[in-house]
């Protein structure tokens, strides 16, 4: 059976709200408007205004209220219309949510989920197109999840809501409408994915490509192209950015001996940098080639279509990098 990511998220929210009366949803336009991206469609009608709360456009206020409610033991799901707006509330995510369990030596845990679309959409310019995975994942106390498929979306969102710690849940607007096949198991209301485990999305022998969210799809496309040229790429869907499944990444690199990291975010201090360091620490002697990093361009997102295309990773970039890692392409500098 096929299901799109929007319905996967909606059904996960619905099932968790139905299973636990402490779960509630708050954010801008989540109720009467049915969600800016319709993720919360039908939930207001089903659970009422006590559990599906439309907030004013004041992120610091409602994120703080969500964290306070979690201190008391509720399980709020706070929707940011996009994660770009979470910057207005980042103090509550980092200082109020992530650090409380530690500072109180375990007295105050914070079972909250911050969720919404993250990363570049299309043609919305610099202030609405940014990946925050590396930002949030650098903070201990937070867990950071980023689903790709419908199965990911269902299993990870349900895991996030049930988790006793604060979770940042990074969706992607451009994936909401995409359909994926889902198993009967993934459709069961008890379905849940483990936090901190990556998924080998496609097995391969010659090069490991790590990706998350929308970039997993690009990596899979690239793998098809590479396969035609005799390169077998192993695609790791990270699913969880923090905790990062270092074991799965290192095991794959020890097998393929080559690594390409892929993300939409800025390159400096990015997820790829962290993955590269982990492999250097644990599997340096297994590497047969320099690690290749593909990331968004180190610029604010431009508006013009041609520039925007250049600023985000494309399938061609992945193919080229994988070939470089496999020594099948001449380095650009040498060619010049």
């Amino acid at each position, binding site marked *: 059976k096929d299901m799109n990511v929007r319905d996967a998220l909606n059904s996960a929210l619905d099932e968790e709200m139905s299973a636990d009366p402490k779960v509630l949803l708050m954010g801008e336009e989540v109720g009467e408007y049915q969600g800016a991206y319709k993720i919360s469609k039908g939930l207001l009608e089903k659970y009422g205004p006590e559990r599906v*709360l439309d907030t004013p456009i004041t992120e610091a206020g409602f994120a703080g209220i969500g*964290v306070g409610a979690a201190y008391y033991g509720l399980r709020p799901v706070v929707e940011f219309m996009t994660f770009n707006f979470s910057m207005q509330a980042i103090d509550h995510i980092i200082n*109020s949510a992530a650090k409380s369990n530690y500072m109180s*030596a375990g007295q105050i845990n914070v079972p909250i989920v911050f969720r919404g679309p993250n990363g570049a959409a299309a043609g919305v310019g610099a202030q609405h197109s940014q990946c925050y995975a590396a930002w949030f994942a650098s903070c201990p106390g937070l867990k950071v999840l980023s689903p790709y498929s419908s199965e990911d979306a269902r299993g990870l969102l349900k895991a996030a809501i049930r988790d006793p710690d604060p979770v940042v849940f990074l969706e992607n607007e451009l994936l909401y409408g995409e359909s994926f096949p889902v198993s009967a198991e993934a459709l069961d209301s008890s379905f849940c994915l483990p936090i901190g485990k990556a998924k080998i999305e496609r097995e391969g022998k010659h090069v490991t490509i790590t990706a998350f969210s929308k970039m997993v799809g690009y990596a899979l496309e690239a793998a098809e192209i590479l396969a035609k040229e005799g390169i077998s790429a192993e695609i790791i869907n990270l699913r969880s950015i923090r905790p990062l499944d270092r074991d799965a990444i290192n095991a794959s690199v020890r097998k393929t001996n080559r690594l390409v990291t892929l993300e939409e975010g800025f390159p400096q201090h990015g997820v790829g940098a962290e993955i590269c360091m982990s492999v250097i620490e644990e599997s340096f002697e297994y590497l047969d080639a320099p690690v290749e990093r593909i990331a968004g361009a180190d610029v604010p997102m431009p508006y013009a279509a041609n520039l925007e295309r250049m600023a985000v990773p494309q399938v061609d970039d992945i193919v080229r990098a994988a070939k470089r890692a496999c020594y099948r392409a001449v380095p650009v500098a040498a060619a010049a």
Partner: protein
Amino acid sequence: IETSVPFTGHKCDPPSRSIDTTPKELMGFFHDMALMRRMEIAADSLYKAKLIRGFCHLYDGQEAVAVGMEAAITKKDSIITAYRDHCIYLGRGGTLLEAFSELMGRRGGCSKGKGGSMHFYKKESGFYGGHGIVGAQIPLGCGIAFAQKYSKDETVTFALYGDGAANQGQLFEALNIAALWDLPAILVCENNHYGMGTAEWRAAKSPSYYKRGDYVPGLKVDGMDALAVKQACKFAKEHALKNGPIILEMDTYRYHGHSMSDPGSTYRTRDEISGVRQERDPIERIRKLILAHDLATASDLKDIEKEVRKQVDEAIAQAKESPMPDPSELFTNVYVKGYGVESFGADRKEVRAVLP
């Protein structure tokens, strides 16, 4: 007993100035405030002896707010405050030993030495910290009030903040939502008249903080009078359960500087400080009441102060015996036990924890 300063209301009829009390309550106020005062003076010495690290914000002068508030509410109600939190913690039933141990970063501290001066908590009696970022505790407090209403607990939350935080944007964001949703939140502005070293009139266009909720009712209270604080908090709790949020502005004063690095004398005169001590001191006010009504003799009260001093000294001696946290505690409590602790890197191999 009649309060010396009338309440001033904003969009509400202020409560009566005549307040019921008992000898037991007054003696309790005296004891608790003397204990708080002594604790803070001792913390000052410990800081200067380099036994307390980092930031340390003392509450002496403001004790009437802590004890008056506690007299009006129960431990089922919640309190959340900023970093000037030692005495609020004590008021919620925290112990001197745990307070001093925490201040000195010892294992026996209320946060096992991992929080420090600004991060005291006592969740089982409704104390949610201890927050270091100015103003953040206000939306958090409104969130606790949201949860109380959601759970139909018929309890309220007091969110304390200073006159400095009163200008923060998130206060107005949270107050707007609290009013929209009728949350049982009481915003308590402890106006000690200086946000760090900036006098209120230099930071606030309108320093009438009880009026700044606009559509939210407010009450101005003599925060140096424990009985007035009690009356106001009782009034506010009833109001909040029925009608949603209310602001209490407590006119109070801190004798110490903002924190230990601030002598507290560059932006205000010594005369101002000693004037408040002589005329408005919250402990002296209760002492006078006790003596005027022959509830105890002057020497009885001296004895209480001596006893309090002894308790504080003993607690410090005991706290000094408490060991530093075990190194293995470095990686505990990052997440709830058993959930996703991760330590990595070549130099961390020996304390490596595994994913669940």
